[in-house]
């Protein structure tokens, strides 16, 4: 579970960085984008493999094969299985995000990438609202309410391994804010650990109730959009 959370955090962070990199001077850097996508892919693989393991052993607390940290060793066999499953599902669904409905998220655990069983004519926003991801959908009403509280973009480099600065408003202000909140909450506790011991995963200030699959769906969609 911790492994999943950490992988999710890394993916969120990567999406944020990719979004932010579009606004920097000089335009999108190909090398940076490639590196971010590699990280996202690694995090996604670890997340999915951890999820597969958790599903395969229900009731047993998921023990990650290794700590999810700089000295992480992604379980290769699980990774291969997940990749095979993913490749199948991706062939069926090049746009995994289009029409995911809440009940569909509970499909076979091997289908880690969401796959619509049928094309739904429902609007995407309402389907996501049902699944609990309303905060990630651009909402006119939310935008008007929170317009006054927007933070400006900061380009300072952190000195002491601090969380990155607030995200500038863009096409998806709520998405950015949710990602930032979630990200900041995860990073606010910074335990001092000896270098020889892998630092524990960042704790969440406030657990957010949302389906992990849907969160993954949104993140993947964000990547596709960029």
């Amino acid at each position, binding site marked *: 579970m911790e492994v999943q959370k950490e992988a999710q955090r890394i993916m969120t962070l990567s999406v944020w960085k990719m979004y932010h990199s579009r606004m920097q001077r000089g335009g999108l850097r190909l090398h940076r984008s490639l590196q971010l996508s*590699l990280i996202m892919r690694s995090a996604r693989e670890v997340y999915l493999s951890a999820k597969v393991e958790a599903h395969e052993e229900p009731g047993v607390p998921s023990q990650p094969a290794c700590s999810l940290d*700089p000295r992480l060793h992604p379980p290769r066999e699980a990774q291969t299985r997940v990749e095979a499953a993913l490749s199948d599902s991706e062939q069926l669904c090049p746009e995994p995000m289009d029409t995911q409905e809440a009940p569909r998220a509970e499909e076979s655990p091997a289908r880690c990438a969401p796959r619509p069983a049928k094309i739904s004519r429902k609007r995407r926003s309402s389907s996501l609202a049902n699944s609990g991801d309303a905060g990630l959908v651009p909402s006119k009403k939310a935008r008007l309410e929170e317009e006054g509280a927007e933070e400006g973009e900061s380009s300072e480099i952190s000195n002491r391994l601090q969380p990155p600065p607030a995200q500038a408003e863009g096409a998806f202000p709520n998405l950015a804010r949710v990602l930032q909140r979630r990200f900041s909450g995860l990073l606010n506790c910074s335990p001092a650990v000896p*270098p020889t011991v892998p630092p524990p995963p960042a704790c969440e200030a406030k657990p957010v109730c949302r389906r992990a699959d849907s969160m993954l769906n949104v993140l993947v969609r964000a990547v596709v959009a960029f």
Partner: protein
Amino acid sequence: MKCFSRYLPYIFRPPNTILSSSCHTEADIISTVEFNHTGELLATGDKGGRVVIFQREQESKNQVHRRGEYNVYSTFQSHEPEFDYLKSLEIEEKINKIRWLPQQNAAYFLLSTNDKTVKLWKVSERDKRPEGYNLKDEEGRLRDPATITTLRVPVLRPMDLMVEATPRRVFANAHTYHINSISVNSDYETYMSADDLRINLWNFEITNQSFNIVDIKPANMEELTEVITAAEFHPHHCNTFVYSSSKGTIRLCDMRASALCDRHTKFFEEPEDPSNRSFFSEIISSISDVKFSHSGRYIMTRDYLTVKVWDLNMESRPIETYQVHDYLRSKLCSLYENDCIFDKFECVWNGSDSVIMTGSYNNFFRMFDRNTKRDVTLEASRENSKPRAILKPRKVCVGGKRRKDEISVDSLDFSKKILHTAWHPSENIIAVAATNNLYIFQDKVN
């Protein structure tokens, strides 16, 4: 405990002055440093598109202690911000690289490049001016021909030294992606420029054409797996060059083999150590700099945590690997969060190829003696750099009890990074760029 400085081949002392801009802005951040072939000149480029050239003082018998210090010789604006209207993108004026041409006459020539355009600059001195024109007066105004009664020959009279920089060539519109490297060929007639996916070969005299010699762009960009990160010509063989990739590989190409050097002649890659595999393995293995040794027999590569020396005759693994700051391996997650993991450090050889140097964080830079296998960490800072004092070796405490003069990993300042360094081609003089400050250290004078 042994004092590393005793075993160092060189003991550096800081200069009398540290060259820096008075107020630090983003534009003042130094982005490249390069000595010319004789070491007489040192060029720096910054994020504001400016080039500042320092010249070494002539040694004077009267002031022995001021042994050849560097002073500002010329400053000019090399690149300006531009706008690509087709893509609606701003093109940064930041100088990515400067490369000197060998001096062939009284003038100096250098190449400077930003993300898209390479320029050839001529830096020349003017210390005389002609006087005594017949048709013009001293202010340059035309004289009334009726008033001219005598004929005289204009003479050159001395004037205050003026150094002028003029752009002689502009090599533009040849790169779709961001230029990361330029390298002058040993034939002194051509040079190459490399971006993320392509390398172009230019002739200095021709600005509207270039030859594409490497193209790794896939037909489908979704299949992109690696990019070019650095490229350099062999110092002696004008047909040979190397380029490094984001996957940690180096390819050596021979231009005699084919016009398009997509197929490498040699491929240098070290097998990945499974015990070190992590989330960030792929990105920390990306090579940020590649440099041929002066002899041409070795190449040195810098990735995020190590410097490696490769023998051109052995492709399977490097012959030497030096850990620059391995204590950061456990901090990669945090370094990813603050973007430091994407920093591109450079590396340099000394004149005899016996010592290599590279930068780190907290304004530290590291030197590795290839013969004695000794290494030292030094710091470029005003507080620790009193004139004519010897630079004190620094040490990072990775765990356990921290000594008085050690610094813990958590106390490192990651905003103070040394990405660009240069080593004099023949003497023990090094230039270290620390954000907007340029430190020049010289070997201790006995």
